[in-house]
């Protein structure tokens, strides 16, 4: 029984890990990412996940005519750079941050409402490290009143 106790600790820690990571991600998005949206107001939606280098994510959202938006891709410092593109529904590229020094911010407005896709990928680390790095990535949207 004594020897099973450490096993139970590992088991408990194992089950708690996803929640710990998610809580850290929320705290990171709230304390760090939100600040970078200013002077835009954060829309309040929480789109964040723990991603590993080489991994990608996509977000589908309708953006409305005449509303000014800021997209901010916020990631942990431990992660390599993030590449992101904004695509239309036919996957035509409207913005690619690789052509803009891997900028994490893009400000835009639309003449007519459109459904767009935000596609991002965590780059692989340079060098020959034997460890894959993971961290929080949040896709934040800012709004501006006229």
């Amino acid at each position, binding site marked *: 029984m004594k020897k099973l106790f450490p096993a139970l600790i590992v088991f408990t820690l194992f089950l708690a890990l996803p929640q710990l990571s998610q809580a850290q991600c929320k705290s990171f998005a709230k304390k760090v990412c939100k600040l970078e949206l200013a002077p835009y107001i954060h829309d309040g939606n929480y789109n964040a996940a723990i991603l590993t280098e080489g991994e990608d994510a996509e977000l589908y959202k309708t953006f*409305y005519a005449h509303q000014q938006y800021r997209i901010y891709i916020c990631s942990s410092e431990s992660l390599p750079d993030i590449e992101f593109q904004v695509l239309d529904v036919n996957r035509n590229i409207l913005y690619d941050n690789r052509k803009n020094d891997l900028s994490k911010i893009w400000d*835009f407005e639309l003449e*007519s409402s*459109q*459904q767009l896709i935000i596609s991002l990928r965590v780059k692989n680390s340079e060098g020959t490290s034997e460890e894959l*790095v993971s*961290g929080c990535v949040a896709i934040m*949207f800012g709004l501006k009143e006229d």
Partner: protein
Amino acid sequence: MVGPCVYKAIKSIGFACHPVFIFKKKCYFYLQMKFVDNHSLKLVTMTKYLLRLSLLQLLAVFVAVGTFSGCKSEKEQKKNDDIVQVDSIGIDEQLIKDVRTVKEIFYSLPSPLETAMILKQAGAQYNEELLNPVDKTTGYVTNRSMALNLGIYTTDLSYASLFDQTQATIQYMDAAKKMADGLGVLNAIDDQVIERLEANINNRDVIMDIISETIMTSSSFFEENDRQAMSAIVLVGGWVEGLHIAASLVDPEAELSENELVSRVVDQKMTLNTVLKLLERNKQNEDVQEILTDMHELEKIYNKIEVTSSKIETVTDEETNVTTLRSQKKTSMSKDTFMELTEQIKVIRDNFTL
């Protein structure tokens, strides 16, 4: 069934514990947990632990983890596959291959704050009669009704605050608090939030910030606690309320083609696709299934509206660095269809706020 679960448990343990070696029929784990420090954002090692288990004990742990963690619903399994729980992990070729095929997909609906801003941008006026009365809060006792009305009251709150309706803003924040408390959302709207709101009731920027934070706290709470279905229901409630306000504010006698509010209602045809995907993803939940049926009714009417869009062109203002996405849209919709849509929105919204 047991086979894949045990395999999954072994694979997951491999993520958290490394390296593992066997000596004299004992398994040795060196458990190293790393976290991102919120202040420095640097990777810090929190715990190191050396654990020794007999092969039998190890098997017991795998079976236990497999039972409790590996054998969840299909959706939860996929989610666990998608998320790597530690910041630094030992690797092998197969693991790299697995990770690279993983893809996280988000379906994002307009938040209550965005909905209110879109309404104002489209020329909406303030009409308190359209909002869900705050004295109905005591009637919402099921998770479904509280989640729907958390979204509805948060949209009403955002709408009232954008039109500088100070008294209504406080009342609707209080109504949203009751719904969040009922759903067990910790600290979404505590007394300090209400006090801060009252102290800054004439400062719209601060109010918007408070509302934004409130929305984020509740949505992230549901995500963290594996209650994605509740999160989806809250968002759909808020979205339907925005649709209800917009459609109700359209003058029935007005020309539809030149009306910005009508355009925003028609735009929701695109958002409805996202709503359906979000609900489909959570359809194992009975409350979601019910709402999905309502949304399919709405879809039938939206399918009668034809919308075509020209190719999008981008133009960036060098001074402001703001890009404009230029495109033209053509909508074909009869007045009868719009009236039918308005009626269906009313039916669904009345059902949500019963």
